């Protein structure tokens, strides 16, 4: 593993590993900083935190939040909650696939978009809802999806692309 990354992981572990039961917060912090948690990184965390790698691997594969492979620059989460389902979430998902070229659970070949499915974003009265990075879009019409996503495609082609951390609030 590259030296800088190893150092980065060590710093995260030192900062977060302060009380018992920190395995999940450590994995969350690593993913929020680096974007995903690979097997290699898990080994590095294990060494630094003194938690067996098998435990960490078990956690990372149990919880749907963790990703073991790099994701796209923009994360498109399509809500498939009950209300959104009734209001046509499947059609929205089809439109997202069409606009990004990424099937559900996958990343587009140009790595601009990852297309993910979520159980519920809690904005049920405004369905169908999608979340792009940290922004929630309400009452999404399938035919408007391509236009909606265009702005992210452009803004993220700049070099100042921030790490596509999961849902860390931008304070």
């Amino acid at each position: 593993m590259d030296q800088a990354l190893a150092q980065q992981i060590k710093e995260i572990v030192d900062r977060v590993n302060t009380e018992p039961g920190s395995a999940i917060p450590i994995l969350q912090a690593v993913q929020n900083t680096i974007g995903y948690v690979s097997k290699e990184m898990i080994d590095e965390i294990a060494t630094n935190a003194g938690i067996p790698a098998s435990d960490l691997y078990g956690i990372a594969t149990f919880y749907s939040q963790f990703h073991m492979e790099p994701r796209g620059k923009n994360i498109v989460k399509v809500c498939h909650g009950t209300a959104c389902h009734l209001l046509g979430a499947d059609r929205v998902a089809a439109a997202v696939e069409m606009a990004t070229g990424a099937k559900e659970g996958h990343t587009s070949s140009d790595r601009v978009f990852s297309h993910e499915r979520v159980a519920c974003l809690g904005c049920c009265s405004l369905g169908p809802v999608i979340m792009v990075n940290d922004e929630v879009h309400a009452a999404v019409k399938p035919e408007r999806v391509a236009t909606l996503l265009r702005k992210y495609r452009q803004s993220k082609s700049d070099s100042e692309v921030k790490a596509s951390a999961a849902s860390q609030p931008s304070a």
Partner: protein
Amino acid sequence: MPQASPQPNNGVTEVRVGLASCGMAAGASQVNDYLRDALAEHNIPLKSVGCIGMCHAEPLVEIVSGDGESFMYGKVTPERAKTIVTEHVLGGKPVEDWLVMGCQATAGDYVKRQTRIVLRNCGHIDPENIDDYIAAGGYEALAKALAMTPEQVIEQVTKAGLRGRGGAGFPTGLKWHLTRIVPGDVKYVICNADEGDPGAFMDRSVLESDPHSVLEGMIIGSYAIGARQGFMYVRAEYPVAVRRLRHAIEQARERGFLGKNILGSGHDFDISIREGAGAFVCGEETALMMSIEGRRGMPTPRPPYPSEKGLWEKPSSINNVETFANVPYILSKGAEVFASIGTAKSKGTKVFALAGNVVKGGLVEVPMGTTLREIIFDIGGGIRDGRELKAIQTGGPSGGCIPASLADTPIDYDSLAQAGSIMGSGGLLVMDDRTCMVDVARFFIAFSVEESCGKCTFCRVGTRQMSEILERITHGQGTPEDLVKLEDIAIKVKQGSLCGLGQTAPNPVLTTLRNYREEYEAHVNEKRCPTLKCAALITYTIDADACTGCTLCARNCPVNAITGEVRKPHLIDQSLCIKCGMCQQVCKFNAVTVS
């Protein structure tokens, strides 16, 4: 309550913008940005508040005048905000067309018909400002509780008849008592904010709009049971709630409501936040504790109950967000006042997240005993697009579908159970006559397949088998034996699972089988979906007489299945069509029909 501005401006003392997740999704941030600049010029205070509850009308802006009059504007855009500032705030003349609530408007029933205890401050106070909460009477209940003995606090909560709002309805006072009497120095208070049911957003709204009420409830709980450490387990999909909670905890520490020797009482207590990592099963209390301990969230058998052996084997009391938010009200108003609301066995109110095919979705808090019909029609304004009510789904994937014929069922723990569903955490999904109930069952079971932790064979394998059968049925490949098998597996999964997830996962199947059997039979025997929802059983065609050849459908078809020349009728190639329905959605001439 709004404080009078030193320089009243046409009587307007304060302007409020709802900035909870749903408001922001609808564009409230842009409205807020505009108002901040526009109002600063005129020295009129702008306050960011949480969820006002009328999600259907977001973004919401409220204009409060000195005499306490309130004008609520709905669906506000920055352009509309400009007009509102010019005409109402500066000109003194409300823009009546955009009002959703206020003296002149008639649509005010949405909030007026509710009884707001849990949501008492939501939409009125700034969730990021502890002084606002204190000005609204916040932390008075805590001071009152600390002057009592812990036993007296528990007695008050017991007398009030408060039952767990997470769904199971266990008496809160009893839970605290059981945790208190277990000997031991180290005990924990845990707040379950892992609101995982799809279709439920009550807890998110409370955490985003009034976080201190939940903290105050937790602190009172910690005093009652004798705990010095608390955990708040929050769903990862709620970044705004987590941010506001962190902020609220810091403020509470600065003011001495958390930390050592709280308000000079000698009681120590502090709270840590743990973010969930995306596992529905962690809403189950034993799994939640495993997750806080940093492990895979897999339920364990009870007993021992958490009150004896909970987090790290220590006595622990786990309550839901809404339960805690009720506690300060009970302490400050008295148990009798609380117990006078509701029914004989279910006291107080319940917050529902009203959504689906209803006109006015949003947050609704009503006394226990209110009927489903009152919630949907009197408050929610009835069914969207003038359709008929078909079913009401409560309790999410653990609940059932209540048919329209039982819409007069009062909401309380026992009546909903009798109707074949559960109170659940408060999701209330309204389904109209276009909803395919087999598809609904398939949807919920698919959710349970994903979320089963895999520990119990019946749940792990049984949910998958049910899902496969339902897939077959919705694809027109089901047989009459499938219905028999489906019911049999559903009952066995219910009986053979350890935790609430497995025990309740079959409910959507069982209730739809019981109440909508004819729909299953149409899918199985006639290979027909009566509501034209199941893609495999329907065909889209273009009516050549109605088609103007505008090419809109052909341009929007994701698989290029539509061909035709400009200004000539178009045609769908059935071998390519994926039944996504996009053509029907975009057609301006109703030329696309489905059969």
